[in-house]
């Protein structure tokens, strides 16, 4: 119970920091927009082609955006010398990770939901009829990105060339998330939309595996 209370306080702090400046959210939204527009030049976005490539490029742009967006997560603490204070403030370091990864999931989900209508218009895809199901896929996928992403942000913050290191560490690891989310999104955007429970279950499994890993090894990730 104390874990949840600590996490709520820390989550409040993360959200306050971000919504004061909204730097992360605005830059990520613009980044996704740029990628989505640039992608349309690489193939002819007719209806059939969009159905085939759309979900993949949507998730690819989310993944790239996330690997940049997760960067400041621990770097901010390190630059301001607040990491030790943060560690001392709570008994269980897992609550720090829970707060940070919840905040990251929320930010990712927010930018994704904002970009979804733009994507639907540019690629002529029927998003509205399956919107609630799509949000479920987006949520599980974003969680899958944010969980290892938050952990690796703590790792890359300690390295040189950290801006390049985080995508290098994170993107190959996210292969399963990319496949599962793309398949689930693709099935929803077909002519006969279908909610692929098997892929959703797979995403949930991925989330559980890495959440458990953070629970086990989180304290080591925060060493300075």
């Amino acid at each position, binding site marked *: 119970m104390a874990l949840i209370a600590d996490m709520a306080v820390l989550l409040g702090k993360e959200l306050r920091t971000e919504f004061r400046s909204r730097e992360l959210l605005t830059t990520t939204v613009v980044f996704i927009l740029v990628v989505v527009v640039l992608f349309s030049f690489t193939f002819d976005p007719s209806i059939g082609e969009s159905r085939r490539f759309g979900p993949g490029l949507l998730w690819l742009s989310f993944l790239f955006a996330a690997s940049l967006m997760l960067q400041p997560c621990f770097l901010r603490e390190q630059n301001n010398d607040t990491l030790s204070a943060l560690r001392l403030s709570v008994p269980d370091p897992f609550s720090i990770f829970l707060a940070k990864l919840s905040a990251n999931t929320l930010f990712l989900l927010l930018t994704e939901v904002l970009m979804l209508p733009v994507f639907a218009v540019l690629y002529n895809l029927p998003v509205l009829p399956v919107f609630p199901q799509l949000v479920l896929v987006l949520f599980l996928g974003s969680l899958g990105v944010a969980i290892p992403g938050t952990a690796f942000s703590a790792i890359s913050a300690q390295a040189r060339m950290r801006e390049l290191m985080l995508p290098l560490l994170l993107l190959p690891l996210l*292969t399963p998330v990319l496949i599962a989310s793309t398949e689930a999104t693709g099935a929803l955007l077909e002519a006969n939309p279908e909610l692929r429970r098997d892929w959703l279950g797979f995403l949930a499994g991925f989330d559980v595996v890495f959440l458990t*890993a953070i629970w086990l090894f989180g304290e*080591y990730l925060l060493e300075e």
Partner: protein
Amino acid sequence: MTKSILRAAVLFALIASTAYLAFYYAPIEKTMGVVQKIFYLHISCAFSAFVAFGTCFYANLRYVFTREPKSDWLGVSAAEVGLAFITVVLITGPIWAHPVWGIWWTWDARLTLTFVLGLLYLSYLLLRSMIEEPDKRAMFSALFGIFAFLDVPLVYFSIRWWRTQHPQPVILGGPGSGLEPRMRVSYLLMWGALTGLLILLLSARYRLEALRAGVEDLRREAEVR
């Protein structure tokens, strides 16, 4: 020194003679022809690579819990040697696939897993080169190694559900599978030889890492004085 040269010479002779067996003793496969000979090297290297990555995972876990520098040395050695073996697998694979499947590469479960595995351990080694301080480098790369290894079954199953083309296992693959006896002898010998090579490379790399750490310690001591 002479001992290690002797070991290397014995291993070289073993690999050369098993290569001879694979080419001249084992019969030529009925449908694939001569190109199937690459199988002996391909599978044995794949096996060595997976053993090396498994060793790396063990060393990573051990480091996190014990913090012995020895485990860190084993981790980096295993990752490097594994990467060398997996490079051989990724090169011999397409050479075999092109005449047999008609394509160089396909995004099938085992092929993709091998590729992603290579990428993950490449990132592991890159990460190590980007962290200066030895304790920090050992801890953070070990943690990344653990996360990367946990990803392996997830990558495998996600791609397996997605699509798969790689042949079903011939060895230990259930009824109807199995190798011709002379092929089996050649294969087992090659497998043994390359496992020997794995052990030799791993121990040489481990000694090198231990020496490096020793030099690093001496340098620091000299700086303090």
